[in-house]
């Protein structure tokens, strides 16, 4: 199904859409407030963007440097060309230690690779430990947002879900009670886990270390209690030097939620004596994206989710409507590179208003890339006949000023005089759930000419 059709499903519950829209806009406002508090915010964005561009242009060198330093620290480094190889590597590490229970903190990469079902098929229990991720895991759904995985769920739904799976008492969705019950439930999982899997927010080439950011402390609870820690990272997560963390950590949480920094920013360098630390570096289509000049800057992304919170389409269509691991504007420029046909409707799920590019902490030109993907898609993917025909007609009208003027006049006449059932018929998508603007008698051209005459 195309994005618009999926969005229509989400839009059936109008009250929920309104709530979703407002909740995310509130996060966007918190981001603004936080960003405006920082002197030199725009300089920080410029720096971050330039550092990421430098990383991509020397990625092979930085990868080698990172590997060498991580190995010196006693960390085992693995390389995976695709999702399948990634999953096999993770499983082989777990199998070697006879691991049966794994706790996992947030990692969009392991979502992308569908690691959970793979490990479960090998009789390994995988528990997502971020509260939002645990909620969607229990609901057997994918996350709908990369920072707020359960933003599409109302608290009453969480209440019911926890009653069923955690045996909680009915509480009208009291977040305090539900969170405290989740804490107890997951603490038990942390204590019993044989291995912990985490994502990587930043990997530092010149130290071989990596940083994981959470608010809940779940990555640390997992990694410090289990005997084995596996950190999975997309290859674009590298930064050259540790001091560059100063730039990125200042931007990340402020852009994501408006916090000045996440509660925990954990710097892992060496495994504890007697324990193992592994890093899996994953390509899975990233080198291909690197080859595309128009789209490679999408690899700057630090997964803050700011573009989602600000996007008028995302806020009103929900993350699941994108049918992609990464939803929203950034997902819509990443996903076509992975499967053009499957994700061909995503670059059209945008008004091209550019708000995503304005809030992006690493200055990805998201809306320009959306426009560029459209141009690729109309050439490579067959478009619906209706859309093609309508656009052809629109093209000929716009190319001919007399025709344009005639069509404008007749549309205005129709809008004013035609009966309501005709204007708001099913054929007019613009009349769905909104009133069309009031019609004036003249258009700009006529108004301007009249004004000139009167001068």
């Amino acid at each position, binding site marked *: 199904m195309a994005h618009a059709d999926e969005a229509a499903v989400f839009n059936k519950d109008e009250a929920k859409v309104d709530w979703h829209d407002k909740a995310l806009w509130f996060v966007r406002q918190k981001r603004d407030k936080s960003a405006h508090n*920082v002197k*030199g915010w725009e*300089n920080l964005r*410029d720096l971050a963007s*330039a*550092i990421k*561009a*430098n990383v*991509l*242009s*020397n*990625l*092979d060198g930085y*990868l080698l440097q990172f590997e060498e330093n991580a190995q010196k*620290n006693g960390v085992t480094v693995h390389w*995976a060309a695709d999702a399948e*190889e990634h999953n096999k590597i993770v499983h082989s590490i777990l199998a070697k230690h006879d691991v049966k229970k794994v706790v996992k903190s947030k990692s969009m990469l392991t979502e992308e690779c569908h690691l959970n079902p793979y490990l479960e098929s090998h009789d390994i229990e995988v528990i997502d430990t*971020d*509260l939002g991720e645990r*909620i969607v895991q229990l609901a057997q759904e994918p996350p709908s947002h990369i920072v707020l995985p359960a*933003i599409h*769920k109302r*608290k009453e739904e969480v209440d019911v879900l926890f009653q069923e799976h955690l045996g909680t008492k009915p509480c009208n969705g009291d*977040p305090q009670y539900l*969170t*405290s019950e989740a*804490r107890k439930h*997951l*603490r038990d999982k*942390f*204590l019993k886990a044989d291995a912990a899997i985490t994502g990587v927010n930043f990997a530092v080439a010149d130290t071989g270390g990596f940083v994981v950011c959470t608010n*809940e*402390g779940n990555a*640390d*609870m997992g*990694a*410090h*209690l289990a005997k084995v820690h596996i950190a999975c990272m997309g290859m674009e997560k590298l930064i050259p030097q*540790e*001091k560059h963390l*100063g*730039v990125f950590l*200042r931007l990340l949480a402020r852009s994501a939620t408006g916090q*000045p*920094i996440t*509660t*925990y*920013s*954990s*710097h892992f*360098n*060496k495994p*504890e*004596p007697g324990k193992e630390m592994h890093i899996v*570096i994953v*390509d899975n289509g990233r*080198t*291909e994206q*690197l080859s595309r*000049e128009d789209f490679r800057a999408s690899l700057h992304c630090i997964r803050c989710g700011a573009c989602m919170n600000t996007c008028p389409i995302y806020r009103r269509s929900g993350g699941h409507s994108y049918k992609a691991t990464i939803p929203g504007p950034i997902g819509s420029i990443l996903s076509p590179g992975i499967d053009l046909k499957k994700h061909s409707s995503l670059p059209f799920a945008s008004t091209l208003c550019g708000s995503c590019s304005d809030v992006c902490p690493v200055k990805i030109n998201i809306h320009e890339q959306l426009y560029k993907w459209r141009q690729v898609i109309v050439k490579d993917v067959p478009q619906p006949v209706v859309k093609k025909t309508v656009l052809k007609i629109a093209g000929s009208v716009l190319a001919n000023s007399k025709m344009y003027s005639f069509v404008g006049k007749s549309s205005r006449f129709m809008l004013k005089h035609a009966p309501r059932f005709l204007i708001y018929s099913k054929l007019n998508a613009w009349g769905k759930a909104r009133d069309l603007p009031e019609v004036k008698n003249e258009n700009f051209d006529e108004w301007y000419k009249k004004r000139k005459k009167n001068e």
Partner: protein
Amino acid sequence: MSRESILKAVKKNKPESLPLPEIDLSFFEEEINLVETFIDNLKFVGGQAIQLNAIEAMDAEIKKLYPKASKIVSCVKESTLGTISINKDTEPHGLEDIDLAIIKGELAVAENGAIWIAESDFTIRALPFITNDLILIVEKKDIYLHLHHVYEAISKRERTFGVFISGPSKTADIEQCLVVGAHGAMSLTVFIV
């Protein structure tokens, strides 16, 4: 292993080399009261700050704040409240029911209310996360304006494990309602001396 093929593909597909920019700190310098800003930000992220004239007054304050705490790990010689001693070989799972941990912070960041602690400050990596409540001690002279200065200050450390902690553990994953106390410490108190 796909190491060689990945590296080869990167080499082939990467753009022409672009320069690594220098961080010009003059963009970010500000004349502000570091202690006040730090305290404001710490409050904003859900922590509480207590200024002490003398470190000797700390234990009395702790007893007032956490009267019920009985299982206490103190990693500082300035507090005598510790009831459980730990060393490198302590099994972290055994710290599951710790009420309170007291740790000396190496430095603090005014701009975000964060405190840097490294493994050598708390011996057992799980401790600051698994404890029910957390106390960090920071000296006024160790409060820095922002992260750029801090990374310079910690650049010579022995790198094993270290963490910036900004407030107590929290989540807003249920309808964006902020709940303090997710998986890590339920509260954070910072003594500034």
